């Protein structure tokens, strides 16, 4: 990479660190959000942009681009589901989950599951599964970060990987200032411009969308088909179905997605954020796949397909822009890795250690446990990334399949089906995860032509239904859970505009007040 690229890359970090430093040095009160009294609403565009910046990670820049390069237009089956994934989840469970989590007082997505399906086993299974699979996702980010850094700086992959891991660990253990909203916003903006620029540069290099497709068709017409290179996936609707499901419903298993529902303030805000997020997705989800496809023409000699987008940027953008965009991408990857590690650490310390091993754990002990696990994940991740790095694509697809299969019925039925009980949820999580896992590793995808996501989700859903119904008598859904699910009882002739303005955060107070008034309250 040229000196200019590196210069602008460093410049980017200086600016970001500067913003962070300034933001942190400002008055203390400004940084913190109040919940009971605050009701502070971030504008919907900012929310949507910040939401999407967490979606921009190693998968987008390496996995998606790599798949496009390797398989041509087949890759868009994955984009097809992804475009609407956020909206789908929001529309199906968002608002209900927000209400229920508020009523049950759950702080995390895993705690939410335990409160809805009361049983320590739920927390243990959900927590363990999530840690294990988040670890995979971290691995994907480490590989992306290491490869990206090696490409940009020209240093060897093992060293670049070590530096990337080191930076991520420092960031996670010491945190602080890159975590400010302003830096996220700035980062999203840079990446937005960067991705658009790369896309436009690629198209103009190739003479336009049609010309590019014609040229690809001349190279190998199967790349233009929906069945992949050499028509490898022809007729495999089971795999196609899985590809569609992965990023539409597969996200249900990801804590950071589910947690977003829990943080929703009102239907009106959620609707607006969902609207902007979908508009964003329409343009930016297909982009990396398409750039990967165009890279077939631009970088015919590319040996690592997953480097397609980086190399296209290096080739087509002015050096300064490349520097900035690469920096933003690296920052996004590290930020994603940091978020994942934080969640992993938090689940390990609260959902496993404090819950099962040491209920009287002090905050310091929990920090130690968190850090211990994060270190372990980072080191194991480093080892795997070094010795036998799988593709970012394969890791993310695998992890999302297993998590999605495990948790989809649990989260959806939590709010939609009053008969979904603890045995049902527990069984569905175990069965879903196992089926998806085994399908992948026993190589059943090739023989059955069915995607692990598809078989995983089908089996977990069936299990939830069958086991819940079979065990209704011996393990009914507890009264207090049903009450929490029933919270919005008849409200009379309240117009829709008012209902839009309902502040979810007040649900507990409302219920307590309604009860209190019924009981006669306490006068004076």
């Amino acid at each position, binding site marked *: 990479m040229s000196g200019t690229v590196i210069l602008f890359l460093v410049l980017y970090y200086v600016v970001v660190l500067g913003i962070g430093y300034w933001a*942190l040095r400002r008055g203390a009160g400004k940084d913190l959000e109040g919940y009971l009294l605050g009701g502070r609403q971030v504008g919907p565009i900012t929310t949507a942009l910040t939401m999407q910046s967490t979606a921009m990670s190693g998968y987008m820049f390496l996995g998606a681009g790599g798949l496009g390069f390797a398989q041509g237009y087949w890759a868009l089956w994955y984009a097809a589901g992804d475009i609407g994934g956020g909206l789908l989840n929001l529309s199906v469970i968002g608002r209900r989950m927000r209400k229920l989590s508020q009523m049950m007082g759950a702080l995390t997505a895993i705690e939410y599951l335990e409160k809805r399906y009361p049983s320590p086993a739920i927390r243990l299974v959900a927590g363990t599964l999530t840690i294990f699979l988040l670890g995979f996702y971290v691995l994907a980010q480490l590989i992306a970060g290491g490869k990206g850094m090696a490409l940009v700086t020209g240093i060897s992959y093992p060293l670049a990987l070590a530096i990337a891991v080191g930076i991520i660990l420092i960031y996670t253990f010491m945190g602080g200032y890159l975590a400010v909203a302003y830096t996220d916003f700035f980062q999203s903006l840079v990446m937005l411009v960067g991705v658009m620029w790369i896309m436009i540069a690629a198209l103009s290099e190739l003479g336009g969308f049609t010309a590019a497709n014609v040229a690809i068709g001349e190279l190998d017409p199967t790349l233009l088909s929906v069945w992949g290179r050499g028509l490898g996936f022809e007729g495999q609707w089971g795999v196609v179905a899985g590809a569609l499901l992965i990023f539409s419903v597969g996200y249900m298993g990801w804590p950071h997605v589910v947690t977003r529902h829990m943080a929703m303030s009102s239907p009106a805000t959620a609707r607006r954020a969902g609207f902007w997020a979908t508009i964003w997705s329409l343009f930016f989800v297909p982009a990396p796949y398409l750039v990967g496809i165009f890279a077939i023409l631009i970088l015919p000699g590319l040996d690592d397909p997953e480097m397609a987008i980086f190399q296209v940027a290096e080739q087509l953008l002015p050096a300064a822009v490349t520097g900035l965009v690469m920096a933003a991408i690296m920052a996004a990857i590290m930020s994603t890795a940091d978020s994942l590690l934080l969640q992993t650490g938090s689940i390990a310390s609260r959902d496993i250690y404090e819950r099962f091993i040491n209920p009287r754990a002090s905050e310091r002990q929990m920090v130690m446990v968190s850090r211990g696990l994060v270190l372990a994940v980072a080191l194991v991740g480093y080892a795997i990334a070094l010795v036998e790095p799988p593709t970012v694509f394969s890791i993310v697809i695998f992890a999302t399949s297993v998590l999605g299969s495990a948790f989809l019925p649990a989260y959806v039925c939590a709010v939609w089906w009053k008969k979904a009980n603890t045995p049902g949820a527990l069984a569905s999580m175990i069965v879903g995860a196992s089926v998806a896992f085994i399908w992948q590793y026993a190589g059943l995808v090739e023989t059955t032509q069915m995607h692990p996501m598809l078989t995983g989700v089908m089996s977990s859903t069936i299990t939830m239904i069958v086991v819940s119904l079979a065990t209704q008598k011996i393990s009914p859904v507890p009264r207090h859970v049903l009450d929490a699910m029933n919270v919005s*009882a008849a409200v009379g*002739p309240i*117009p829709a505009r008012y209902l839009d303005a309902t502040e979810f955060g007040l649900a507990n107070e*409302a*219920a*307590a007040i309604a009860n209190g008034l019924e009981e006669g309250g306490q006068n004076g």
Partner: protein
Amino acid sequence: MVKEKLLTVIREQVDSATALQNIAGMTGGVSVVVERSVLYPYIRFTASCSVPTMIGRKAISVDCLVDGINGLGATADPFSTERTVICDEVRLQSKITNEAAQRIAQRTVTHQLGRQFRMIAPFDVQLEAAGTIYKRFWIIRIGGGRIMTDSVTGNMHTLSATAA
């Protein structure tokens, strides 16, 4: 004879007339009337801590309120209170003990700050108990249903109509 009581109530930003106006504006022709107000208990703590970040420690001081009925904790924006005599309002009794509230507040502040600063680092949180305070909610009747309005933020929520 109704007993009078001196309580600490969070200073309101939205009075009953404004609350009524907001709701009347949304409901078109349906009749709206302020039925009463309810005081909701929170146990208040002031938390101070020194959060370690990459560029040195940052001193944070934040209020934490523990919901007196169900024990949910949350950090809060700065607010002011006033000592008021109340006699004709419904007041809900706090059900959470101070010890339990203290633990909850500790947990809430640590969790919140850890997430806010996106780091895993140990830091001590010093909690100072500041008693029980109340927030006023305006209960407004609309036709056959009731809505409550938060007197501080103006946010609203329906009340189930079982007691209607």
